[in-house]
């Protein structure tokens, strides 16, 4: 757990510390993926075709959440596409000579959305909040931060496991600042784009409140199941989508730009009754994964290491035996009900299991996943995400296709996010019950001239527009 060794009020930061000037993130031309907007806008409308759940803050589970969270919640530092660290919530950071801990100082005027000042204690409490809210079993935080002690109102000392020359881990979204939960369900944040405090819960429209009048507010419209082309035609300035039809439509129109958001989702097969000591990834076969990638609509590729669940993280769990499969029933390969890619992968596995032996993918499947090919022909079946954590329900399936973020920079958070969705008995042996399948990426379709965008080192986009002269916040 994170150790808090200081109390408020804390002494001021030592005089003479080199504190860079605080301010908004710096946009560099090299990291611009869309040029600055030429057209003023009162509001930027971003359509999202995947669900966005505020309970997932700060670890997004799909491209839409990733885009929304990155605009609403500030990380301690920013890291641009070149890998350079820039101030964000932190105004200054340094490691005193001969010490392991980093002395961190907040910028001069960080404020919550409700205009309350942000303190160093808020930052540490935020990390505890992540542990309580997003990921109950979150010893993964220890993999990011060993200890934190509050030195003053804006100063705190943090010891990181990573002894690198720069505290790059502080740029991870997992350590972004998020406070108490508002009536709308969203945690309180401090980013350049905020949310109205009294916003209603469960709304399908998330309208940000910019911290300054230089940029217009962003309206995220959540429209699961809608055709992306319709959303664009209805006036959306941007669309996050992986639908081939929408991408093809956008590519055919000169006023729209298509920007890949990076290979951000990884589809894996959870084998509840998996046994043996060898990690599943070692048995992975490229032919099988390519065959699986071909079954996915949109862009997909064979999953590539390193895999987050193979990282040694301080995971806590009961351990124990794998889930015992129900004998005698027709083997089922499950997928989460609203996950079309997961369904395509499950069905492809069912198809490959019934192929004759001449197919290389079938041969690889038999070698890598004998649980699927041995015995009766399997069938594909949907299940709810809540059922995924039920050992009894999971025992009805020989394997289940689930997706997890591709986050090589935050493997323990990714691992914890995946583990939290599985029965406790499987959490300490992820590498033995998880078989990597494919990676996918979504795209941002943006209206040229209305939106500017920059990319950070993880591929996440920051959108911005411009307001008409004289427009006030």
């Amino acid at each position, binding site marked *: 757990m994170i150790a808090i060794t200081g109390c408020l009020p804390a002494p001021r930061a030592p005089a003479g510390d080199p504190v860079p000037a605080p301010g908004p993130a710096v946009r560099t031309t090299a990291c611009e993926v869309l040029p600055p907007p030429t057209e003023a806008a009162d509001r930027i409308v971003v359509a999202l075709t995947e669900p966005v759940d505020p309970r997932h803050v700060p670890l997004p589970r799909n491209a839409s959440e990733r885009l929304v969270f990155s605009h609403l919640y500030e990380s301690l530092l920013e890291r641009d596409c070149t890998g350079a660290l820039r101030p964000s919530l932190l105004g200054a950071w340094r490691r005193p000579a001969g010490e392991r801990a980093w002395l961190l100082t907040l910028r001069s005027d960080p404020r919550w959305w409700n205009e309350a000042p942000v303190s160093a204690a808020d930052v540490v409490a935020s990390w505890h909040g992540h542990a309580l809210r997003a990921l109950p079993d979150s010893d993964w935080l220890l993999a990011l931060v060993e200890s934190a002690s509050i030195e003053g109102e804006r100063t705190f000392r943090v010891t990181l496991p990573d002894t690198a020359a720069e505290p790059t881990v502080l740029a991870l979204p997992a350590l972004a600042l998020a406070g108490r939960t508002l009536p709308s369900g969203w945690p309180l944040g401090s980013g350049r784009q905020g949310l109205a405090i009294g916003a209603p819960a469960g709304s399908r429209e998330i309208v940000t409140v910019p911290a300054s009048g230089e940029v217009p507010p962003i309206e995220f419209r959540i429209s699961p199941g809608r055709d992306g082309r319709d959303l664009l035609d209805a006036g959306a300035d941007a669309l996050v989508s992986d639908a081939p039809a929408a991408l093809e439509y956008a590519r055919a129109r000169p006023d729209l730009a298509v920007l890949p958001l990076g290979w951000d989702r990884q589809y894996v097969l959870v084998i509840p009754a998996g046994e043996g000591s060898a990690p599943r990834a070692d048995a992975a076969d490229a032919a099988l994964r390519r065959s699986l990638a071909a*079954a996915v*609509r*949109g862009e997909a590729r064979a999953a590539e290491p390193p895999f987050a669940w193979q990282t040694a993280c301080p995971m806590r769990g009961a351990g124990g035996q794998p889930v015992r499969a129900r004998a005698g029933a027709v083997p089922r390969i499950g997928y989460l009900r609203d996950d079309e890619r997961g369904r*395509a992968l499950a*069905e492809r596995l069912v*198809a490959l299991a*019934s*192929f004759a032996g001449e197919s290389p993918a079938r041969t690889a499947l038999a070698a890598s996943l004998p649980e699927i090919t041995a015995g009766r022909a399997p069938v594909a*079946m949907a299940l709810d995400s809540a059922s995924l954590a039920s050992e009894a329900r999971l025992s009805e399936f020989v394997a289940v296709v689930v997706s997890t973020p591709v986050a090589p920079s935050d493997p323990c958070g990714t691992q914890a996010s995946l583990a939290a969705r599985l029965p406790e008995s499987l959490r300490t042996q992820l590498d033995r019950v998880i078989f990597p399948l494919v990676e996918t990426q979504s795209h941002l379709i943006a209206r040229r001239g209305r939106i500017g965008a920059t990319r950070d080192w993880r591929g996440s986009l920051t959108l911005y527009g411009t307001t008409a002269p004289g427009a006030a916040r």
Partner: protein
Amino acid sequence: MSFRARLAVALIAVVLIPLVVVAAGVRGEMTSRLTAEYQRRVEALSAVIRQDLERESASIAGRLSTLAAMLESDNRFRAALKGGPDEYGAAERDYVVDYAGRAMGLAGLEILQLQSEDGRIISSGHFRAEFDRLEPELPEALALTSRGAAIARARTAEGPLIGLVRADTARIGGRAVILVGGTALDSAYLGSLARDGAIRISLELPDTTIASPSAAADSLRSAPAGAIIAAVDLAVVDGGDVPLRPARLVVAHPLDELQAIRRSVDRWFLTALALTLVAALLLALWLARRLGRPLEELAAKTAHLDLEQLDVRFDTDRDDEIGDLARVLGAMTARLRAGAARLREVERRATVGDVARQVNHDIKNGLAPIRNVVRHLVQVAGDDPHALPGIFAERQGTLESGIAYLETLAANYARLSPRLDRQPCDANAVARDVVRDASAAAAPAVELRTQLDASLPPVLGDAVVLRRILENLVGNAVESLGPGGGTVTLSSERLGGSGDRTGGGVARLTVADSGRGMTERELAHAFDDFYTTKPTGTGLGLSIVRRLVLDLNGTLRVDTAPGSGTRFEVELPLAVAAAPSLPAPHVSGPVPR
């Protein structure tokens, strides 16, 4: 077996046999007609279904032909096919893989897959993920069918799908693309073929059966009744060494409806049977009672007949056999009455004769000394008249003794038929009088004593009769003492009360002596008329006592043994149901002379 049981069995047999015959006939006729009707229905429906399948096959062929033409004109598909899978981009790959799904929906098919010339699946509409599967057997088998259509198994991600399929071919860039498509023969489709919820359609394949979802199907599975069936022969692509195997579409009319009707008929029959049984039993009971009651009455009257009671009457006005029987019994009773009267008259005459002979004998015995004295006196009067007073005086005792004997004899005969005057009387007073008189006449060696209960209530009887009873008993007791004398004790006591078995209670009068007692033989004849052990006895004393005690509704008990004296106990009913009273001391002691 009783008369009633025989009557009930006969009635039940007469009623049930026709009922069973009628029920069996109705059941058999109904089964025959319904079975024939079912057979006509399934044969007609199987002919219609055969035409339906031919129309469906022709429709599939038309749609596949249209799709083949569309495919040949699709340049994007043509370009993708020319490049091959390895050269696909994501968009082209998705276009090809999804082509069959789109076309399947457009053509209204439920099964569609596009296959290359070597049988590899390019695109599958019913199972999108099945691309690249090598399956040349299906189009080859379809080519062998006479009409171009066959039953085939398709796979989906959720399980197998069985359908009626055909094949067609599109030529694209010199290469053939085989279209295999059809409609699903699932449970719902079979149900639509049935048209009638009572009929079940099932597709029987070598290893499985699909049935229409009719309610009748469930009953068919659960009931062993069977069904009337007709079949449509089909062929199924098996995929093994034999490309095509026979299959059949079975049209079945379950017999469960017939069974239900049979069960209903059986229920009604059993109900009628039960009601008839009850009615027959009730009728049998009524008839048996109506016939049996007069017989029972005749039997009861006849049971009372004996020689002492022949006044039973068998009057009847019935004109049937029972009336005849009653009249025969009445005539028989009349004859018995006449015979009994004659018998009693004979007995009476015999008894009177016996008494007359006894009286004659007794009188002769009494008159003999008198006649001798009178003859002696007559002789003395003729021979020596002066000696007559002396002789008379001498023989006067003999005369008086004979006369006394005759008087006693007459009195005893008179006592054979006493007249009762039953009323409350003081038993203690009577006892004291009897003992006093007896003491006066008894020898000095005889001691008479009384032990009387002073609180004894009056008994219901006749004081004269009670005195005769006690005089006889006390006299016999005194006479039994012999020359040496002895003791005679007369005692009274009250027995029981209103709550015991004696009802209102009884008075016990006991005469006990210390005489010689009686032997068993003497006791056996002690109460017979004219039986006596005494030289001067008449043999009527105890006989009279027994009769008199019975006339007073009392009881007499004797306790005796040779040398131990005799004890007579007479128990008489009390005059009133006396209230309980305090016990009084017994008064006992020698009776003053």
